[in-house]
């Protein structure tokens, strides 16, 4: 079996199943579940063996296929009596419906793709702005998202996003818990206790704030500090256990 079709080109387990069904021209209304399951499993195993990260949805589908297969093998009381598999009792039914629905949307996607390509060839003009003409102030419904998108469009047009010289990177500061543990310990070294809020006094970023908090939790866990709170939701105190 040729595995030229790479994992990435399948949009998901349903896509893979459709591929298997269409490739062998199987009848979707009477899927040979055993055959399909084994082919499916071969794909999964092959991808695993070349160390491709197989998404969990593929594994789940494998389990589903095996479940359906086992249900088909088990003697069903109703089936014995009917001597045929009715639609309601067919364990493949749900899967088949899902496959059909998915295939429809695949077709629609293809249709949209053609429309998209067609519409890409239609040109519109941007609005003109005349400062001489007094404009009636309108209530603009702007949200930061729209603003950002507009700005990005402008930048793209000027090709500025590609030109790295125009802006520099702001380095995010790296705070380590170890550093902050030292800092906190130093802060309570010579005092009996210190207010929780004071620990964050000089904080300049969320990063720093979170690291200090984590450091505090670590210290509490190590029993290097104690905490005390007078009232619910009030500021609380970090206590130096050696100064009690």
């Amino acid at each position: 079996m040729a595995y030229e079709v790479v994992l990435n080109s399948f949009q998901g387990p349903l896509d893979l199943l459709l591929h298997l069904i269409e490739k062998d021209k199987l009848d979707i209304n009477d899927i040979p579940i055993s055959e399909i399951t084994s082919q499916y499993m071969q794909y999964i195993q092959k991808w695993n063996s070349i160390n491709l990260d197989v998404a969990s949805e593929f594994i789940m589908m494998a389990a589903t296929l095996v479940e359906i297969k086992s249900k088909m093998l088990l003697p069903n009381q109703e089936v014995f009596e009917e001597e045929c598999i009715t639609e309601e009792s067919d364990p493949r039914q749900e899967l088949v419906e899902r496959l059909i629905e998915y295939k429809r949307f695949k077709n629609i996607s293809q249709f949209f793709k053609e429309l998209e390509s067609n519409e890409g060839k239609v040109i519109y003009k941007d609005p003109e702005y005349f400062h001489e003409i007094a404009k009636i102030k309108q209530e603009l419904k702007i949200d930061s998202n729209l603003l950002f998108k507009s700005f990005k469009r402008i930048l793209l047009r000027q090709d500025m996003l590609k030109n790295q010289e125009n802006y520099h990177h702001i380095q995010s500061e790296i705070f380590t818990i170890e550093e902050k543990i030292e800092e906190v310990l130093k802060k309570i070294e010579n005092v009996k206790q210190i207010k929780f809020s004071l620990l964050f006094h000089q904080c300049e970023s969320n990063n720093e704030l979170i690291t200090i908090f984590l450091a505090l939790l670590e210290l509490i866990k190590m029993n290097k500090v104690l905490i005390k709170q007078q009232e619910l939701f009030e500021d609380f105190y970090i206590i130096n256990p050696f100064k009690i």
Partner: protein
Amino acid sequence: MDRKEQACIIEGILFAAGEPVEINSIAKIINESPKETQKILSEMKDLFDFERRGIQLKRINTEYQLATRTEHYEYIKQILIPSNTTGLSKAALETLSIIAYKQPITKVEIESIRGVKSDKSLQTLMDKSLVLIAGRLNSPGKPMLYETTKRFLKYVGVESLEKLPEFENFCNEVEYEKDHA
């Protein structure tokens, strides 16, 4: 002013505006009812097509806009500044298709149809303003509901959601066999 004059004015308005103009705004300017304005615009659209004008009159919902024709793209593009627009990915297209035909719909429902997670494609579609969050479903967890935008209609060149081909049109041969088995 007579009909011809009104049509001329509308053409000027749409040219200067560039972006889509609401039919009600046009109606106010030419001092006509929206219904009559609609008629004039329809006639204009037909005339432009009949006369094989290089400019077409496009309608998106209740807005009108002037645009070039797809047939001439190969010529026009030679004068344009190239922009980097690649089409949507397969995943995004699938997600968009589902939302277009099943809106309003939640992320979980989308994922159940596709059989895979759809966070990335949803984000892409929102970034491109093709879908938006239209509210929340009144059920546990209050999940967000997604719908397509006006931009989407423009993106696929369809006047309105009603003008999208019927869902049934997209069924495939296998389904026909099923019904006639």
